[in-house]
């Protein structure tokens, strides 16, 4: 938010809860253990949280023989970088198509969410109209729902519409179930932009859409980025609805395709982990970018 055109940073209270101000107990040494003790504990926490992903990374570089060896090796004896090439052509699942599927569904769902949520977030933050609270309440309820609880209904409905086993179905599902987070977080950002700015713009002859795009968007950009990344990552990782709605192997996203590598008797673990690394690393980076704002949209105005 350094290129703030109005030199006034919007006070995005619920969206940026991790401000540094004078807050409780970022306390100095003495408040529960020495600094050295904390660093040691910190290292342990990092190791614990990264352990599965370390196993993933090193496993993805082992040969098929080595990854099933008894006793197992912690680190690869030979680094099989070629796993990252050969995994794209395996009999278990058409991986390139699965990657395309994942990308198409996540990108399209994210674009759809943005197009649909942005105007709603802006309008509900700026104007009052009959049904405004009802609309926001409905959004909040959807936020608490997940595809898993409605999957039987979604399956029947898409069957009736003739779009079961299509990308369109999963784009709609991912968009609908991530809409709420996007509306809430952008709503809270728009609400923090002083209304006088809008009024000034409209006196200067700008219409509502122009006010939104030219005046407000630059100010609420962090909220939009958060909404985009959160939606994209959620769609990228979606599993439950895809499992039921997408039955053709080539239509399935990576999250579903992965499970094909794990067989009853024979599993290609090195490919499971190679695919996982390819799928996981980009989204971890995206989440790290919006780390400080992740909580905001999920908890709405409930944590002051």
């Amino acid at each position, binding site marked *: 938010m350094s290129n703030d055109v109005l030199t006034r940073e919007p006070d995005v209270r619920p969206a940026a*809860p991790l401000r540094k101000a004078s807050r*409780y*107990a970022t306390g100095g040494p003495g*408040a*529960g253990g020495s600094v050295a003790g904390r660093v040691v504990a*910190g290292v342990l926490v990092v190791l614990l949280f*990264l352990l*599965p*992903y370390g*196993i993933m990374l090193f496993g993805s570089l082992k040969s098929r023989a080595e990854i099933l060896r008894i006793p*197992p090796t*912690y680190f690869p004896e030979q680094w099989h970088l070629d796993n990252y090439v050969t995994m794209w052509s395996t009999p278990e699942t058409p991986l390139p198509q699965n990657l395309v599927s994942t990308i198409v569904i996540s990108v399209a769902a994210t674009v759809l969410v943005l*197009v649909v949520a942005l*105007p*709603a977030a802006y309008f509900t933050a*700026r*104007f*009052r109209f*009959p049904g*405004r609270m009802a609309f*926001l309440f409905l*959004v*909040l309820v*959807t936020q*608490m729902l997940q595809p*898993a609880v*409605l*999957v*039987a*209904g979604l399956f*029947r409905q898409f*069957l009736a519409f003739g779009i079961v086993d299509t990308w369109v179905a999963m784009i709609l599902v991912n*968009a609908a*179930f991530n809409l709420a987070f996007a509306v809430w977080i952008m*709503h809270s950002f728009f609400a923090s932009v002083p*209304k006088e700015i809008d009024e000034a713009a409209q006196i200067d002859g700008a219409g*509502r*859409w*122009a006010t939104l795009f030219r005046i407000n968007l630059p100010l609420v950009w962090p909220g939009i980025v958060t909404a985009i990344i959160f939606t994209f*990552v959620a769609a990228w*990782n979606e*599993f*439950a609805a895809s499992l039921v709605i997408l039955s053709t192997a080539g239509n399935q996203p990576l*999250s579903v395709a*992965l*499970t094909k590598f794990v067989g*009853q008797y024979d*599993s290609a*673990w090195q490919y499971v*982990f190679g695919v*996982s690394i390819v799928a*996981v690393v980009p989204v*971890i980076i995206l*989440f790290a970018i919006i780390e400080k704002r*992740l909580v*905001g949209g999920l*908890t709405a*105005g*409930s*944590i002051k």
Partner: protein
Amino acid sequence: MSSTTTAAPAPPAGPPTPPRRSLRDLLSALPWIGPSLALIVLIVLFPAGYMVFSSTRDISQSGVDRGSAGFQNYLDVLAMPALPRVLANTAVWVVAVVALTVVLSLVLSNFLNKQFPGRQIVRLAVIVPWAASVVMTTTVVYYGLQPNYGIINQLLADVGILDSPDFGFTKNATSAFVVAIVVAVFVSLPFTTYTLLAGLQSIPADVVEAARMDGASHRQVYFSIVLPQLKPALAVAAIINIINVFNSLPILRLMTGSIPGYDADTTTTLIFKLIQSDRAVDQASALSVVNFVIVIAVIALYMRIVKPMKGVDE
């Protein structure tokens, strides 16, 4: 790209608006909120209704609607011999995962709120299981716990927790269920910790300092000042976790899916088994409706306790 109507700007709450004006306001709002509304109605509300309808129909394995079934699907679900075990599993699953998650997150968030070099790195590491796909995290743990060639088994044997690395954690329902609980806690920690961290940082420093001046110990400060102020954050974290954990599919499916029978199933994983293995969409719908009612009840509780709408100015 210009406005044609003028809805009332928000701040001056004037006298009650006459009905014709309010209808016009509603119409002027439609282009803005209409698409969102359509998406919610089409992909959330309509399937919910359709699911209730399907639960009262007799649907063949190939998906053909063979007419009304009344409440027969509900009776069929109730008559399933596995149901008591599944319900008990569901209760254990939700209570154990949410309780462990909340307690561990309290510790973790308190720790991440202290100052030490490298804190930002630790915070970023904690976020990783949130960003990473649950399917992938679960799969790697499933592999690690395979007898003999699993790395976590080997690690546990090397540090002396297991006698031998040939223990099959995922080979029987009980141990697989316990492992699934551990994984579910692991992937739930980031969101919960961050929510509590946000709560911790909203507690004014001067209140805590004043208590310290009065001679309160760190423990006293935490339990009598910090914890009570954390209540809203705790309520949010707990309720969102309850819903997520209740609806969670991938962890149990991957950890326990290859075990025959329903000894490690919750109502959610049973629904997916009914749809996919038994192709009994009608019974699955009936069970889903029951699940849906439970979720709605939890949401109602959320609205009452947390009052999330109070953040919106009327």
